[in-house]
C-alpha cells in the first residue's frame, strides 16, 4: 500500500508500467490541440494519446494499462508545445511518474507542478527497465520519492536527478505560488528600482 505525503504524492509509488518506447514524443501526441479548447482540466485523461489509441495494438489499449501509474518512454519526452494540458492528461489517466532518458524543459516544469514526476535515468538503466518489463509486463516498478530512486523489479535501485526545490515541494506540499507570494516585499523593492 502506498500512503500519501502532504503534497498528495504517493510514497512509495508502486505500480505496473506502460511502455511507449519512442523518442521525442511530442505534446501534440499526448494531448492533440483540438482538445485544448476548454477552460478547465476535466476529461483530459480520456483523450490522452487519443490518435495513437485508435491503433488496437497501442500500449494504452493493452490489459492492465488503465491501472498503470508509471509510463516508460524514450528520449526527450514531452517536446513541442508548452501546453500544460499534456501533464493534465497524463495525470488524468492516472500516471504519476514517467521514466525516460531525458525530458523537454517546459514539459518537465509543467509536470513538477502537477504531481507528475519526470524520472530521468541513464540509457543503461532504461534498457534494464525495458528488458524487465518485456520479460514480465505485469512486473512493478517503484518510485521512491524521498530517496529519489527508481526501484527495478530486480530490486536494483537507480538514483534519478530531481531538483532540490521540486523535491522539497513534492515532499512537503509547499506550493510555488505561495513561495512566490511570500516574496512580496522583495518584489516590491525590486520594482521600485527596475526600469
Amino acid at each position, binding site marked *: 500500500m502506498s500512503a500519501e505525503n502532504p503534497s498528495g504524492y504517493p510514497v512509495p509509488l508502486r505500480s505496473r508500467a506502460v511502455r511507449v518506447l*519512442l*523518442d*521525442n514524443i*511530442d505534446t*501534440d*501526441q499526448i494531448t*492533440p*490541440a*483540438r482538445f*485544448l*479548447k*476548454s*477552460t*478547465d*482540466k476535466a476529461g483530459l485523461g480520456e483523450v490522452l494519446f487519443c*490518435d495513437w489509441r485508435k491503433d488496437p495494438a497501442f500500449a494504452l489499449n493493452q490489459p492492465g494499462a488503465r491501472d498503470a501509474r508509471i509510463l516508460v518512454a*524514450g*528520449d*526527450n519526452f514531452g*517536446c*513541442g*508545445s*508548452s*501546453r*500544460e494540458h499534456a*501533464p493534465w492528461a497524463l495525470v488524468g489517466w492516472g500516471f504519476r511518474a514517467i521514466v525516460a532518458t*531525458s525530458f*523537454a*524543459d*517546459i514539459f518537465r*516544469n*509543467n509536470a513538477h*507542478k*502537477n504531481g507528475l514526476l519526470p524520472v530521468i535515468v541513464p540509457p543503461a538503466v532504461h534498457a534494464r527497465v525495458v528488458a524487465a518489463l518485456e520479460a514480465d509486463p505485469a512486473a512493478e516498478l517503484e518510485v521512491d520519492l524521498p530517496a529519489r530512486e527508481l526501484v527495478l523489479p530486480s530490486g536494483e535501485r537507480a538514483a534519478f536527478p530531481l*531538483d*532540490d*526545490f521540486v523535491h522539497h515541494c513534492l515532499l512537503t506540499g509547499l506550493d*510555488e*505560488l505561495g*513561495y*512566490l*507570494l511570500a*516574496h*512580496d516585499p*522583495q*518584489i516590491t523593492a*525590486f*520594482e521600485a528600482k*527596475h*526600469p
Partner: protein
Amino acid sequence: MSAPRTLFDKVWDAHVVAQEPGRPAVLYVDLHLVHEVTSAQGFLALDERGLMVRRPERTVATMDHITPTDPGAYAQGLEEVVTKTLSTLEANCRKHGVRLYAVGDRRRGIVHVIGPELGLSQPGMTIVCGDSHTSTHGAMGALAFGIGSSEVGHVLATQCLLQRRPESARVRFEGRLPAGVGAKDMVLRLIAQVGIGGGTGSVFEYQGEAVRGLSMEARMTLCNMSIEAGARAGMVAPDDTTYAYLQGRELAPAGAAWDAAVARWRALPTDDGATFDREITVDVARLSPMVTFGTNPAMGAGVDEAVPSPDAMPDAASRTALGKALDYMQVEAGKPLLGKPIDVVFVGSCTNARLSDLREAAAVLRGRKVKDGVRMLVVPGSEAVKRDAEAEGLHETFLAAGAEWRETGCSMCIAMNGDMLAPGRYAVSTSNRNFEGRQGPGSRTFLASPATAAASAVAGAVADPRPLLDAGGAR
C-alpha cells in the same frame, strides 16, 4: 572591471529579485503576453486565492489560437466552446484591468507577431507567454520563453517566476548566406544538425555575419524555432537594425525615454571574452532551401538532398523513429522530396506571417498561378500586417494567383480554428511543427520558407524556389 558577460547573463542578472541558497531564482517578468488557450486556468488560480493581477500594465492579451480566419465565420456563429473560451478571456481581462486586443481590434494578431510590431517587446526585457514560441521575442535582444498555465498564474499574481539558471550556448552561423535562402532555412538547418532535443536546458545566442545581415522579421523567424531544437530561448544582440525597427512604434519609448533606453540597450551585447557553456557552429555558405520530410522539425534536408534511409541511422531508436516517420509521411528514402505532389500550401503562423514573409511569397507568385487542385491559404500574422499587405497590393497578387487571403490568427499551424488538412493530405507549410496530426488528424506537413511554399503552390509539388526568384529578389 567585472568579468565579461553574455547578453543572456546581463538580462538574467538584471531580473533576479531573490536567490536563496539551493532554491531557484525569483525572476522578474517585464512583459507577460496572454492568449485565450493557456490563460483561463492561470486566472482561475488567482480566483481560487482571491488574488488580482499584480501588474496589469505589464500584461497584454490577444486572441489568436482559435479565432476563425474565414471572414464570414462570425456571422454564421461560432462553436459553443470557442465562444466560451473567448468570452472567458474577455471576462478575465475586464476583471483584472488587462489590455485585450480582441477580435475587431486593429492591434489584434498572433501574440508573437504583435509584441514586436507594437513595440511592446524590447531589448533587455524578460518576456513570457503560455506558448512555446515566445522564443520569437529573443530577436529583440530579450530573454523570452514559453511557460505552462500554472506559471501563467504565478506571473499574473506575482509578476515573477521560479527559474533555475539555464546554460548558454553560442550558435554561430558561418559563411555568407547564398541567394534564395533565408532565416527559415538557417534555423531548419540548425535543428537538423543539433536535433530536436539538441538545445535542451540552454539559451541560444545567435551570432555571425549571416545573422547580423538579417532583418528584424527574419531574426524573429530564427528565434521563433529555437524551441524546435529544445532550447529554452534564442536571442540576438540588439544593434542598429533593432533600434531602427523599434523607433516610432506605437508602444515603444519615445522622446527622452527613447534616448535613455537606447543608451541602456547598447550595453547589452555579449562582452568580448565572455564564455558560453556550449559552442555550436552552422555552416550556411552552401545552404539550400530546407524542407522537412518527417514528423519532427529536425527531420529536414535541403530540397535537393535525398531523404535519409532508416538503415543509415546510427542506432536502433533513430532507425525506429525515422522508419515510423517515413511510414506516416509516406515518403520514400533515398531521393529528394523535390517533385512530391502536395494538396495544400499554408503561408502563415508566428514563424512566417509578417510583411516580409508575405512579400517573399508574393514575389514568387507574381504573374503565376497556384496549380489546379492545390489550395493555398495566406493568413497574415496580424491586423497590421493585413493592412500593410493590402496597402501595397500583395493580397491582389495572392488572389490573382488563386490563393485565399484570410483574416489573422494561428490558423492551420495548430488547426484549432477549423482551418485544417484532411487525413492523409500533404501541406507545404511555413509554420513551425510537422508533428503527426499537427495540421489535423492524419495530416502530413512539409515545413519550409514562404518562398519554397509559394514555389510549391505553383508546381503543385515540393519545389525549389530559386529558379523562380529574380536575381536579388525578395530577400
